[in-house]
């Protein structure tokens, strides 16, 4: 348990929510149970009481019924089923029934079925004078009679006073207090001699609650043939049940609402908590990321600063050296020209050319890098004689490094064939790699240029693979990732001059061909570059 608790990492707010929810569940369940028990005991007692009362009512009704029966018998229909009753007597006869507790309304049946006069609207139970036009109209339409005795505010009313002369002209002072709809009309097709219908009603029972009232049917006396009397009582059990249902519904609603509320609070708080935790984590991550970015930016700044220093140092050295040659040559010719032998003059002039060429090459390198960085490197592949190019490059490098202690060897594993390359870029690749191999082998050693074609098909010839290896100073392993960065020079180059541009140019040129370059190196042992051009 303790391990479970320990593993559960709830916040104090979540714990509080959980506790509140549990307390609420216990309280709500207890309340429902208690309420049910209370209802149960009350309802059973009330039902018994009501049953006894109802029985008493029915007994009384039976007694009163004789009076009604007498009354009905003395007021026969005159014509067309229209009841002509002595309304005062009818009122007297029915009042005791209506005054009994729980009596809602009475319905007297005739032989053809129940004449269920639905007491309708307060207007029905209003003053008879104001009802007269309505009653007349209704009766004219329905051609059917009914007599309603209504009870309003505990006082029974007999609705009367309207003469309905248009119904065969022989009507007494009869009132009808009910809405007579079509269905009802059908049932009221009374023949002459049919017992009358009598409806007693107080407040109209709402339609939905009709089922909750019990009906106690009392047979009419035999002389009323198949008719009958219904006493409508309030069903206390139904009332209690309805109340309980209302309470239960209310309780459930409250329970649900509270539950939802607490769940919502829990959800919102846990979401808020999760959000705050998340935002905390995010902000921590962001802070970490920002620190990292700052450190990276700083490192990059330092790198750029170092790069700038290297660039300044490189340009300074690499431009000043040929400038020194050019200037000293020019001054020699200017001040000592007449004392120089013709051969010497030629040499001096040639050295000027050499210096200018060197500066041009430097400029070319810088421009190459600049164009490559701007992705504007020219690429014009065409068919070239590879073997011839390789040999030219080797000769050129040997010419550039006449005093090298290195032995340059070549091995070409391909026939006299042509390849489709950009000659200028490929020359950059091979020249720079070979020059580097010699330059960074101050103690001499073997420099090898190997070239061969990978196996392929006549349609798709294999890639050309060039490899340049030396036994020079090598490259420290941790500097390999920056090897091809412009102006970057390895830390172990010492006083060996260089621009730091060569390998960058090589890489650009290789990539422009869609090829790849790989390097293997061990400090103090040598380096091998392998270029693969498709």
């Amino acid at each position: 348990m303790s391990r479970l608790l320990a593993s559960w990492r709830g916040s104090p707010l979540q714990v509080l929510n959980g506790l509140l929810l549990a307390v609420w569940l216990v309280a709500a369940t207890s309340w429902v149970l208690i309420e049910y028990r209370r209802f149960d005991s009350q309802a059973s007692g009330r039902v018994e009481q009501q049953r006894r009362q109802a029985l008493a009512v029915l007994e009384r009704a039976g007694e009163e019924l004789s009076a009604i029966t007498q009354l009905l018998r003395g007021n026969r229909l005159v014509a067309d089923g229209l009841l002509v009753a002595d309304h005062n007597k009818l009122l007297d006869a029915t009042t005791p029934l209506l005054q009994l507790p729980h009596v809602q309304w009475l319905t007297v049946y005739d032989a053809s079925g129940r004449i269920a006069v639905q007491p309708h609207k307060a207007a029905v139970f209003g003053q008879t004078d104001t009802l007269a036009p309505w009653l007349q109209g209704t009766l004219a339409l329905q051609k059917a009679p009914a007599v309603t005795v209504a009870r309003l505010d505990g006082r029974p009313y007999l609705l009367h006073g309207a003469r309905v002369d248009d119904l065969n002209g022989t009507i007494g002072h009869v009132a009808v207090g009910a809405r007579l709809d079509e269905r009802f009309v059908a049932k009221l097709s009374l023949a002459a001699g049919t017992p009358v219908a009598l409806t007693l009603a107080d407040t109209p029972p709402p339609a939905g609650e009709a089922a909750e009232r019990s009906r106690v049917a009392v047979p009419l006396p035999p002389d009323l043939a198949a008719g009958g009397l219904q006493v409508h009582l309030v069903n206390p059990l139904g009332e209690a049940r309805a109340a309980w249902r209302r309470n239960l519904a209310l309780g459930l609603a409250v329970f649900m609402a509270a539950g939802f509320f607490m769940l919502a609070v829990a959800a919102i708080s846990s979401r808020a908590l999760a959000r705050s935790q998340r935002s905390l984590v995010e902000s921590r991550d962001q802070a970490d990321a920002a620190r990292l970015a700052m450190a990276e930016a700083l490192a990059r700044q330092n790198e750029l600063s170092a790069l700038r220093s290297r660039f300044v140092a490189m340009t300074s050295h690499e431009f000043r050296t040929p400038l020194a040659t050019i200037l000293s040559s020019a001054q020699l010719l200017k001040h000592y020209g007449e004392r120089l032998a013709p051969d010497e003059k030629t040499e001096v002039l040639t050295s000027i050319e050499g210096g200018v060429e060197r500066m041009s090459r430097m400029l070319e390198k810088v421009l190459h890098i600049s164009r490559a960085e701007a992705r504007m490197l020219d690429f014009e592949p065409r068919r070239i004689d590879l073997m011839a190019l390789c040999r030219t490059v080797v000769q050129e490098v040997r010419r550039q490094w006449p005093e090298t202690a290195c032995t340059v060897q070549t091995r070409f594993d391909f026939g006299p064939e042509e390849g489709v390359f950009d000659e200028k870029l490929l020359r950059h690749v091979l020249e720079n790699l070979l020059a580097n191999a010699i330059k960074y082998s101050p103690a001499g050693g073997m420099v090898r240029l190997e070239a061969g074609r990978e196996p392929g098909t006549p349609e798709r010839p294999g890639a050309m693979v060039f490899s340049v290896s030396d036994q020079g100073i090598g490259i420290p392993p941790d500097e390999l990732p920056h090897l091809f960065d412009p102006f970057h020079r390895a830390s172990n180059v010492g006083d060996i001059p260089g621009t730091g541009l060569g390998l960058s140019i090589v890489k650009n040129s290789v990539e422009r061909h869609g090829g790849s370059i790989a390097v293997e190196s061990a400090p103090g042992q040598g380096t091998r570059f392998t270029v693969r051009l498709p």
Partner: protein
Amino acid sequence: MATILVIEDEAGIRDNLIRFLRLEGHEPVAAPDGLAGVEMARQHRPALVFCDLMMPRMSGFEVLKALRADPALAAVPLIFLSASAEPEKLDAGLALGATGYVTKPFDLGELRQLLARHLGAAGTV
């Protein structure tokens, strides 16, 4: 007439210095790198040394140290020929005992003045 040693890996500069020194009436000797330069110094006992800074095998600073460590050569004036524009580097050279320095591209007239100052003889340029 003095023996002047030129230690310079750039052939063009080296050749021009040799011509210049010869035309100025000196006896130039030259070496293409530091190691050879020290050897030449020991061999020829030059009156003055012009020495490049960045060279293969042995840098100018190492040449200076080697000469200053050699009792026979410790007093020989040494002038650096520097392609670097970094003053602190040149100051470091002076601190090590260099006599002076010129930055490339140098003026031959400036070299003449240096020669005159350190050899006590001035020509005309």
